[in-house]
């Protein structure tokens, strides 16, 4: 399955500035592994030491949060759009 993954601004330095990458993967867990192979360092930003998706990072398949699907086991279909939405706090200073 080939999906496109939207890379948020804070992680773009790991993708050489690219805001969207294509990945072959059958599910979200595999997508993270394949992202890591292509762009070392991404997995650490997305997952904790136990390999679980970090609580301050949300991964969406199309418009749905994978936490409310099957987490890392959420299956991916061709042309799915995956978005990584990290917590951001800026606004004032």
């Amino acid at each position: 399955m080939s999906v496109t993954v939207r890379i948020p601004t804070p992680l773009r330095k790991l993708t050489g500035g690219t805001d969207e990458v294509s990945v072959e993967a059958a599910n979200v867990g595999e997508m993270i592994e394949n992202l890591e192979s292509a762009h070392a360092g991404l997995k650490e930003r997305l997952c904790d030491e136990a390999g679980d998706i970090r609580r301050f990072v949300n991964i969406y398949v199309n418009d749905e949060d994978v936490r409310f699907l099957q987490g890392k086991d959420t299956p991916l279909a061709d042309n799915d759009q995956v978005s990584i939405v990290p917590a951001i706090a800026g606004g004032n200073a």
Partner: protein
Amino acid sequence: MIDFTEEQIERYSRHIILPEVGGEGQSRLLESKVFMIGAGGLGSPVAYYLAAAGVGTIGIADADVVDMSNLQRQIIHNNERIGMEKVESAKKTIQALNPDVNVITYTERVTEENVREIIRDYDVIVDGCDNFPTRFLVNDACFFEQRTLVSGAMFRFEGQVTTFKPHTDREGPCYRCLYPEPPPAGLVPSCSEAGILGALAGSVGTIQAVEVIKELLGIGDSLSGYLMTFDALRMEWRKLKLRKDPACPLCSKEATIKDLITYDEACELRTAQG
């Protein structure tokens, strides 16, 4: 409904002729009270539009003074106000725009000690702060005090906006449903590394202002249950579903948080020079 003066009828005429607002809605705005956290990047456009709309009372909390480097995006301030308290500067701008607005200033940060008491006096709370501990504090306080929270955040070229009101929207999430706790130190770049496109603050802040005014009027569809994201480089808005977390530590039946928590400075990560 309040009795409008001639001047008010003229000032608000473009609102009053909207069937969704009308004299009654405008009257409601004039009787409304909105509390804003931050008179900075997001707070500037929010304050401008709430004041122009005739929101009767605007409370603003900010402990900082105006700095030259703020003026690239914090449009409620200006060159002559450098060194002035931001809340004072904001008050001057608002009152010059619309004398109907009563501005209440708080030259302090919101804290565990003061936040609940402050927000109790207001109808809607607007978060445009620049750090995670305050975002969690304000979310929790709004939950306990049953206040609607319109939250905006930004980073470099990206923005996020949503509304949290789990007290009226049973299916509606709170900030902790979205992010249960603040990120640990070191995983998010600091403000000095970040930078921000100044006009982005306008894009995000005006969406917040629209949302606040709709909440006050009780019209249209709320952003509760959705996260609006904006990518300025791609010029793309997206509306993602935001669900109530059945295991949310704050707003679910499984809640473990029963009172305010202050996260210490060690985990304070300013991800953007907002």
